[in-house]
């Protein structure tokens, strides 16, 4: 059923607060969460006998081997049984009854307990319904398995269960912190396309607007331009005071990007400017807007739900030609992890985006492939829709991440020798 535009809230009623679904997981089960954080459904597979196992465990139940490796699954399965909960001892589910669950036999072998999408038909007679299994992060930030119908149906994303597992911008209010760059403008267009109800767009030093492209999105019906300078605590606090209580998704794309390492530029003023926006700016924004989002994380169908940090793949491994920029993004990444932990209790999803070089003026001299602003924006919105929390958009980001995950020390050498 398509999502109806929510009615205006009665302002004198108490705002419902979040109760999280059960979040405890054993360490081995966190492998499911680590994969779901990047949008993948993975299960353990035994290296020796090839069995796919679930629930996650330390040894293969078929051959007792301890060599279990996480492998991506295609999710094809059959729904053996279904139920609708009308009672739960857990507050999260109690508040969202009735809630559908299913028992699925994955073609790959194991039996799974899953959340059922509303469009999944209950099994009839002896014939199990075919389903597609995916892994999503629930409001507690832990992976759960969900069953989707084999074929998409209209308004799939509007399913109440799926909306709890995602941060779909549809009918939500979004803040994009910097509309003065091509990336900011691309984000605004993409959010408008995704059905956001309202898009606040920040801009600093508006007297520099000429040639920035801000005017190309200023006229969109969802857009309101507002002054926002992340280097100025009062500016951030003032904006939070004005709109913070209404923002559902914060997208922090404000950044300063220069192409200097240590020796190419004397003095610390450039590095300080990068840190002032990329790190301290993110800190000011998080302090000012975090509490308001947290307070509205269970506020109806268009609740506050997500915080997007535009980082860089250089946050994982320093790119020496843009060395101080890389360091500022590494600082921002560490802070974003802190933010993710702090907002976890409120059920707010912190989405960290690690693009490779963007096709903009600061990467003019880098060879392709470079990421077009529109492609970055599309990846951000997709991540919000699919409930992904760590995004590596584009070829360079994807490859750097795989190399980093394989061996960060080897990557460090490759970059230093110009190999990457």
């Amino acid at each position, binding site marked *: 059923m398509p999502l109806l535009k929510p009615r205006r809230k009665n302002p004198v009623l108490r705002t419902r607060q979040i109760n999280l*679904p*059960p*979040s*405890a*997981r*054993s360490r081995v*089960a966190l492998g499911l969460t680590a994969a779901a954080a990047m949008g993948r459904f993975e299960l353990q597979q035994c290296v020796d006998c090839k069995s796919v196992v*679930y*629930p*996650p*465990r330390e040894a293969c*139940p078929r051959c007792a081997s301890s060599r279990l490796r996480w492998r991506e699954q295609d999710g094809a399965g059959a729904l*053996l*049984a*279904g*139920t*609708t*909960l*009308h*009672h*739960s*001892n*857990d507050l*999260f*589910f109690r508040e969202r009854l009735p*809630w559908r*669950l*299913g*028992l699925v*036999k994955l073609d790959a072998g194991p*039996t*799974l*307990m*899953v*959340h059922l999408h509303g469009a999944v038909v209950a*099994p*009839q*007679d*002896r014939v199990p319904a075919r389903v597609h299994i995916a892994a999503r992060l*629930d409001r*507690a930030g*832990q992976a*759960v398995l969900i069953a989707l119908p084999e074929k998409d149906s209209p308004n799939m994303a509007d399913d109440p269960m799926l909306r709890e597992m995602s941060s779909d911008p549809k009918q939500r209010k979004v803040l994009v912190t910097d509309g003065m760059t091509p990336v900011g403008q691309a984000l605004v267009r993409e959010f408008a396309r995704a059905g956001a109800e309202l898009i606040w767009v920040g801009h600093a030093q508006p007297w520099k607007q000429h040639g920035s492209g801000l005017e190309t999105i200023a006229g969109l019906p969802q857009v309101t331009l507002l002054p926002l300078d992340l280097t100025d605590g009062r500016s951030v606090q003032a904006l939070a005071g004005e709109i913070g209580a209404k923002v559902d998704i914060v997208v922090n794309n404000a950044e300063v990007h220069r192409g200097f390492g240590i020796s190419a530029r004397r003095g610390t003023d450039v590095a300080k400017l990068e840190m002032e926006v990329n790190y301290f700016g993110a800190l000011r924004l998080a302090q000012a807007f975090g509490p308001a989002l947290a307070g509205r994380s269970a506020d109806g169908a268009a609740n506050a739900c997500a915080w997007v940090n535009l980082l860089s793949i250089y946050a994982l491994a320093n790119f020496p030609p843009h060395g101080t920029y890389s360091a500022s993004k590494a600082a921002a990444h560490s802070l974003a992890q802190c933010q993710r932990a702090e907002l976890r209790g409120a059920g707010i999803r912190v989405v960290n985006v690690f693009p490779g070089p963007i096709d903009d003026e600061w990467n003019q001299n880098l060879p392709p492939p470079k990421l077009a602003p529109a492609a970055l924006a599309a990846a951000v919105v997709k991540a919000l829709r699919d409930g992904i929390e760590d995004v590596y958009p584009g070829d360079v980001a994807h490859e750097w991440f795989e190399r980093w995950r394989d061996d960060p020390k080897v990557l460090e050498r490759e970059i230093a020798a110009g190999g990457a």
Partner: protein
Amino acid sequence: MARRGYDGVALAVPVTVPYTRYSIRGAHWFLGQAVHELCVASGLRKEQFDGLTVSSFTLAPDTAVGVTQHLGLSPRWLDHIPTGGASGVMAVRRAARAVQAGDADIVACVAGDTNHVDSFRQMLGSFSQFARDATHPYGSGGPNAVFAFITDHTMRTSGATREDFGRLCMDQRHNALASGGTLFKRALTMDEYLAARPIATPLHLFDCVMPCAGAEAFLVMSAQRARDLGLPHVLLRGAIERHNAYADDPVMMRGGWRMDRDELYAMADAGPGDMDFVQTYDDYPVIVMVQFEDLGFCEKGEGPAFVRAHRFTWDGSLPNNTSGGQLSAGQAGAAGGFLGMTEAIRQLTGQAADHSVPGARLGLVSGYGMVTYDRCLCTGAVILGASQ
């Protein structure tokens, strides 16, 4: 190698500590009450219990060992059996071998749990690793969803209807009212059963047991010892247990009893048709039906027809859960695994008062427990026979 029989092993002194919905006492209190009642009913001193088994979910941080010091016992044989609904059967099997080997003379088998307002909820999150990782996050709040799946699947594949399950519940309620040990005050009608509010479809209110506080206990000793003490007793005729059976069944369709039932009946030199009553484990009515199939009372898939063809009241064609079972009395945690055992002992020693199965000589007690993921892992059964 053929299994050794249970010749000469007796069970005696069935004790039930009355169930209450909630209690401020700890599990140790209920276990202590049970041990005290064992002494009163048997005339023995607790020092004469030189073997002890303990089963409980709310004893933490203690296990059986803590109970020895807590209650002032010094057994030379001890077993902690934390397997819920299967703990009664498993306690009997272990105690029997200890007695046969002379490792213990008189084993007190005790099960009990308290129930605070948050006991059930607290237990759920840490029941098992697989529950914590793969079912608890889905909100079912316990085994309801798991057994809803099993019930849903069974209904579609075997043609069982809600009325079939209702019949089982109604007959058990009838037994409960006759025996006087029940939370309910009047008979359950089919209309009331069908109209009850849904819990996790297709399970409704009367398909689910109510958690409560209480305890059950009995003694295991040699038949000779029982005779010497002048204690009314039953003889252990056969016992089986199995864990994680049919692991490849994608949903529970077969229970582990199926793997070992032939051995059970061979040990007892009797068949299903010889049972004068059966105490099935009734956490949900679907499992009662599965036990009828997998303990050989009927073929797989014929459970519905079997249920429709019988009456399960204490005076019916196949008395089942003759004191009402957990569905009527409530589930006092691990004591739910002992409830059928103590009732069976009473039935076979003439202590069943107003609900005695006429001429009962042989009875089967079934155990089932420990939902760690998507089914109970433990199955077991004993056959008890009257001693005279």
